[in-house]
């Protein structure tokens, strides 16, 4: 109760300490995750659905990224079975570009930091009521008129300088809600669904996401969503008084 009162009091005055700490822990981890993740993607920039996907299987799409894009060199394929549509094998003749030795280990090291930050954040957010009071949109805020007003407010330039921290208008609430309660947990879950050891223990992960390659594809789409969020997030900080916003997230107000 005391925590809630304090939270309500500080509501319009900057960011709470636990928000600031977990924000920077997650932000640092996400920066390293993006760097290492893109490096990992460059080793095999093709995406599939289901459990199997490789250079001998038609991809859903291929990302034009790095030296391996549309560049694989195989010996002629041989069929495993007599039927004409049999799966095949072929020898890879040129080693693809591959920096996964460090990129994979760096990705998982950063993922541990990310997981620690996310778990701490979610624990504090739910235990303190922050999630419901500050982030979760109220029904009246979701009315079309209110959302439209907020959209228009975001399109008017120059944007007025904003106080760092809550209370948030509806678009900000929706963005943060989607990121912290959906996209970030989804990155973790689709990430571990690519692990052969973890899915041996929790095969339900493969069932939920429709297979290891589907999970990888959803991991990529969720990353794309988060990358767009990050660009808008940074743009909004630049447009609403970057020094004050930065100070708010470091010192609280």
């Amino acid at each position, binding site marked *: 109760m005391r925590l809630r009162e304090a939270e309500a009091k500080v509501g319009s005055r900057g960011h709470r300490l636990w928000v600031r700490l977990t924000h920077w822990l997650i932000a640092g981890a996400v920066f390293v995750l993006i760097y290492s993740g893109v490096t*990992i*993607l460059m*080793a*095999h920039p*093709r995406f599939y659905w289901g*459990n*199997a*996907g*490789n*250079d*001998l*299987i038609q991809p859903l799409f291929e990302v034009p990224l790095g030296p391996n894009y549309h560049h694989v060199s*195989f010996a002629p*394929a*041989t069929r*495993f*079975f007599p039927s004409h549509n049999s*799966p*095949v*094998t*072929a*020898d*890879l*003749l*040129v*080693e*693809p570009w*591959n920096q*996964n*030795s*460090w990129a*994979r*280990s*760096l990705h*998982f*090291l950063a993922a*541990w930091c990310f997981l620690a930050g996310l778990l701490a954040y979610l624990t504090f957010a739910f235990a303190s009521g922050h999630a419901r009071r500050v982030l979760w949109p109220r029904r009246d805020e979701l009315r079309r008129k209110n959302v439209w007003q907020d959209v228009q407010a975001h399109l008017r330039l120059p944007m007025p300088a904003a106080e760092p921290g809550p209370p948030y208008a509806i678009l900000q609430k929706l963005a943060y809600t989607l990121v912290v309660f959906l996209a970030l947990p989804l990155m973790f879950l689709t990430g*571990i669904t*690519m*692990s*052969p*050891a*973890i*899915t*041996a*223990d929790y*095969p339900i992960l*493969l069932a939920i996401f429709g297979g*290891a*390659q589907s999970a*990888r594809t959803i991991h990529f789409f969720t990353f794309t969503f988060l990358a767009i969020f990050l660009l808008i997030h940074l743009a909004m900080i630049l447009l609403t008084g970057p020094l004050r916003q930065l100070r708010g997230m470091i010192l609280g107000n």
Partner: protein
Amino acid sequence: MTDRPLQLSRRALIGGLASSGGLLLSGCSDQQPPTYGNILRMGDNLTYNAQRLLLSRSALVAEYDRSQISSMPAIGTIDPSRSDVGLHDPQGGEAYAALRKGDFADWRLKVEGSVNNPKSFSLAELKQMQSRTQITRHTCEQGWTAIAEWTGVPLRTVLAAAGIRPSGRFVQFHTFDLMADGIDMVDALHPQTILAYGMNGRDLPIGHGAPLRLRVERQIGYKSLKFLRRIVVTDKFNDLGRAGPIQNGWAWYNGI
């Protein structure tokens, strides 16, 4: 008297935390992969110990239907006798070429180290042992996956035939190319860890590691070494120098 359990539990807690911290970050234990002060290798060890602590040691990976068998590229070393592709070892390559000419009739798998009866198995002898066939997903570190049917002898059957000494902790694999690697006893004794001589109902193709390859189904593909020639049980962790993953900058444990 009432204080005692509390003190004990507090001491146990502190001791437990300290030792788990040591486990996670240790670079000097002879039961852990060495880190050489590299923070990436410390992260690998954190993942290794966390998975050993949090995951069941006997859980089986998903097995698929024959209809789900997929295409599968052969990558890395696709023929140890070829010097133009993969990690060619001139001596191993020459030995491999000679054995292959005789359809691997003279090929032997040596099993030695911390075992009571060092043994050597011919392909025919391995094929006479109780076999296991499994249709599993291969997960390559590059990001691709493939589903194939593998037939072979469970590694634990072969190790049991040689009699692992109680001090044995790791199992190393040596090949005809420049790769060697090892796994711990949790993976070595897992029922789906097999020495495969068959793939999709036929003899293992050259590109996939003929005559015998390892399948470690709960780890990433490169742990499933191809072109096996020798298995060594060790009491202590050995990073296998330039043949092993660690000194080439790769993680030793790859559950993820």
